[in-house]
């Protein structure tokens, strides 16, 4: 019964999470276009206006698992959208993050040297009850799959 609940819950979340007029790509594409892939808990988010006039958010992950790349205990990456004061920017193709969420993220270097998400909403996998809901796979199975792709690239 618990399994069924998880399954339906996962479908619902995926429907809400797929947030884009996006041309979908495979995990292999995501791995090949990323420099860092990590899984862990979102422990903080800050947002501010940047020079491009947009609100950007910086999420910091307490890393449980490094799938690919060099990463320390905490990894911070940026993405478009967020709230500053009374103003919120939401971006249709961008994922959103919340403190306390367990996620896996695909990251690449931004021009300013910081890390940013690799490819919009496709850069985020959300862990619910031990499964990544976007791919509907258990934590370790999916980590192993990505690791194998990363090792053969």
């Amino acid at each position, binding site marked *: *019964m618990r399994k*069924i609940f998880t*399954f*339906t819950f996962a*479908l*619902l979340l995926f*429907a*809400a999470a*797929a*947030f*884009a*007029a*996006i*041309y*979908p*790509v495979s995990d292999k594409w995501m791995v090949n276009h990323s420099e860092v892939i990590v899984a862990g808990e979102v422990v903080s988010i800050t947002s501010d206006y940047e020079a*491009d*006039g*947009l609100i950007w958010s910086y999420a910091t992950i307490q890393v449980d698992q490094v799938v690919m790349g060099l990463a320390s205990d905490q990894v911070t990456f940026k993405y478009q959208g967020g709230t500053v004061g*009374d*103003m*919120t*920017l*939401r*971006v*249709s*193709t*961008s994922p959103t993050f919340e403190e306390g969420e367990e996620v896996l993220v695909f990251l690449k270097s931004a021009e300013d040297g910081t890390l940013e998400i*690799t*490819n*919009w909403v*496709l850069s985020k996998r959300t862990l619910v009850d031990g499964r990544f809901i976007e791919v509907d796979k258990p934590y370790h199975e999916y980590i192993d799959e990505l690791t194998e792709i990363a090792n053969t690239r």
Partner: protein
Amino acid sequence: MIRNITLIVVALALLTSYSFGYELLGYDWTYKPDPMGEDIEFNPNCSDYGCGSEEDQINALWQGANAWTDYAKAEFEFTYGGWTTRNSYTYDAHNIIFFSPGSSGNAIATTYWWYQSGGRMTEADIVFWDGAFSFSAYQSPSYSEFDVWNIAAHELGHVHGLGHSSVSASTMYAYSSQGETSKRTLHSDDVNGAQALYGEQDPFSVIIHTDDDSYARVFSGSGSFDFTVLAYNNDSYGHLFRATIDLVLPDGSTHGPLLNLNSVYIPANSTLTYNGSQNIPGNAPVGEYKYRARMRDTSYPYDDYDVSYFMFWVEGKAVAGLEEAGEGWALTGSGFESAEPLAGEGGQAHTSTAIIPGAFELRQNVPNPFNPNTNINFDLYEEANVSLQIYNLKGQLIKTLLDNRALDFGPYSIEWDATDSDGNSVSAGIYLYKLTVGNEIALKKMTLIK
């Protein structure tokens, strides 16, 4: 195990029928004064071959807006804010749509919403990622192109405040494919989403479109285009409307009406269609025109119930004087009904030979079948002496509900309680109701069940 499978099936069925569908994001434009409308400015800077002319791009983007404004039947309208050269999705008090020469991951197009506390949306911008994908704004996309109208309809749904639907056939479904044009028009799930945000539109609405909306009408010299006007009455009674077509000239002034139908009658829950052809005179001023259909109250001051329009363009020759604009805008067509041109409103008012409502319209009783009460509804379009009588199938008179009564025009609903003229209940079966208006008669059947 069997039990588990059953549960999964039930769960999926529930998801399919209830949980999946449109998504509200918690912000919208409802705080704005009525009538709600949001100005959108268009930058036709697509560099793809398939995007055709700048006018084709404006046309395709506007069709995407009209998908919602005309067809969602919600109390929200996009209004045409004209051309812009702006190309930034930053917060600048302009809602714009533009094409970026850059790419951004695998995004085809992105909507940037800005909103404040209370869910008050204050700006929305749409960017098409032209550096990454090829777009088509002229007629049909090839397999390698994304259709601008199709994508614009999706992104403008976001501008309403809608998120992604899980109904794969809906316009607000998250994923698009090349060559797709099916999302140029809305799915019922999209309509439900828009109405959930803004409420249902007044029951009277009008749509004007060309015989092929997938390319822009651009004229260099005289010409013509064909168009269709659809007038909707979603009320449960027939109504009279004034239907007009006029022009907004390049200088912003209004010309016309070119068509002025004084008393178009639309039966309850019905659509009327008018097909026309519009001549463009050779001396028309160069520039952008709005071709506009208006559905209005029949009485002064002619409040618009609804307005629908598309743009066309005159280009490529010496600029004619605006004073010449009044000449040569001949409109021919048929549909709706004939009407008298309004005196003094100018233009070349049109007279046609189409349908004028008759003296009356008798409707099916509601409910039907019934027990024991039902309502017999009819519309009377002139003052008349009216009789309404109930007969059984043998042709015997059961009861007279109206006996040569002098009635004014208007909708009427007369209740029958399934009793005869002595007040006794009649037996179950089929009965006829006969409406006599002057010397015209209409008959319909109804079924009494017990």
